């Protein structure tokens, strides 16, 4: 399937391709919708996973996002090729927030002042590459959970999904100054939590 992501040389072609797929999907063509799904499923899943922090719940919520998107396809009109992704992220954000609110009480947050939760044991044997990836993934997720909701949302969209500021503003509804400030604070906080692994990564 042709990419409908970032602006570029073939932006017009991509827009018309996305529009054509959308038209077909609106008329009930499931294959067209499956192509759209195929293209965006990973991004949406990762986005929700970073917000929620649980794989199974993120899978359910990703499915819910696409079912809602399918239901609302008729209302979507594309003006540029980034609109589809921002639209999907907006739905995903709402789905995740609804779920997150109800789970907030049960969620275990890692306190910033709890360094034990963010350190690898020095006595353990040196992990191989796969274990290292798993471990770093866990640590990044825990560090993300220390951010407040707004900062995590902005940070996830910018750093993991590489959305532009304008796109993030559309998805979140935040003003540009607010989201830039949130992003800076989130980056500083994440850097302080990940500093030991950053050095490790440099060595690797």
């Amino acid at each position, binding site marked *: 399937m042709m990419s409908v992501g970032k602006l570029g040389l073939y932006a017009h072609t991509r827009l018309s391709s996305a529009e054509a797929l959308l038209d077909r999907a609106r008329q009930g063509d499931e294959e067209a919708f499956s192509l759209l799904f*195929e293209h965006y*499923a990973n991004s949406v899943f990762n986005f929700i996973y970073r917000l929620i922090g649980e794989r199974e719940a993120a*899978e359910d919520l990703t499915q*819910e996002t696409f079912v809602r998107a*399918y239901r609302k396809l008729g209302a979507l009109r594309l003006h540029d090729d980034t609109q589809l992704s921002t639209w999907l992220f907006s739905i995903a954000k709402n789905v995740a927030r609804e779920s997150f609110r109800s789970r907030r009480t049960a969620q275990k947050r890692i306190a910033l002042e709890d360094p034990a939760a963010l350190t690898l044991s020095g006595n353990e044997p040196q992990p191989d590459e796969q274990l290292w990836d798993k471990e*770093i993934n866990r640590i990044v997720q825990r560090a993300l959970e220390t951010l407040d909701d707004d900062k995590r949302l902005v940070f996830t969209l910018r*750093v993991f999904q590489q959305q532009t500021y304008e796109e993030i503003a559309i998805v979140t509804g935040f003003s540009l100054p607010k989201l830039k400030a949130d992003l800076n604070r989130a980056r500083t906080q*994440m850097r302080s939590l990940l500093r030991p692994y*950053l050095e490790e990564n440099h060595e690797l």
Partner: protein
Amino acid sequence: MNCKECLSLLEDYLYRQLNATADKQLATHLGACEVCAGEYSLRRSEQKIYAGCEVRVGPEFWAGVQARIQQEKGLRSEMLAPLAALWSGFRFNPALAAAAGCLVLVCLAALSLYVGTRSETGRATTAERQDKQPLGAAPAKQDNTVQVLEAGEKSKSPLDHSEQNVPRHTGLALKRASSGRAPVASEYAMKRIEERASGGEVLAEPNSLLAARTNIGSDLDADSARHIERAEMLLRSFKNSRFLPAAYTSELNYERRLSKDLVGSNILLRRDAELAGNVALARLLDRLEPFLLEIANLQENSGRKEIRLVREGLMREQIIAALQSF
């Protein structure tokens, strides 16, 4: 380009989101400034870590979405099938259209004639009554509600006035009130609603949710309130049932059947709410729908695991609380 500008654009540079000119200027600055180059190197390392954290969905993932879309489609087509069948048989015919137009005109004329005659007769009867009425007598009551209440009062014993004979479920009372089958209940329900509206008495019965909901605002009609109440009872019962082996199938079948009934009305009410601009109600029904679908689609031989999953979803979403508090 100075360091401040460079740092503000560093991330765009990293994600290749700059135009060619800015990209070149920034690259030049990075080559000349050690501090900015260090920051850039750090951000690249960070990005490498974040990029390594990407998780991917399996190929079977689409099947889940497809199944849910199919369910929704199936329900919609089931509901719209009679209309579609009617429409498919329709072929445009000018003669038929003209005949239909004439028929509509004739019906309209007949209706206006009937209404005109009726109002004339009504005026004449009232005038006759006023003529026949003795001087000083109270005017005849014309209000339908009052007439119904009077009929109710005549037919019942004095004990019927007491609170003991009042039905405990005001929801039922409301239904009866609208159907006009039970004057006592309707009188009671109307009285309670009036009292509630005037801010006088707080409803005493814990079960009188429907009356309370109907009374909250004009944007929640009796159908929606009844639907929400039924859905809440279903979900609560589903959540709390133990589904003992002896009664397992029959209990589950009952829940499934009830849920199927509710799915249809949920879709209709959700659409009505969306059309009427009642966002809160539409959102609540939208949240409720997946649970009704999940229960309706449980198989007869569904294991405890499937039921547990639905229950966990109920608890996670706190939909029962949302229904109750609405």
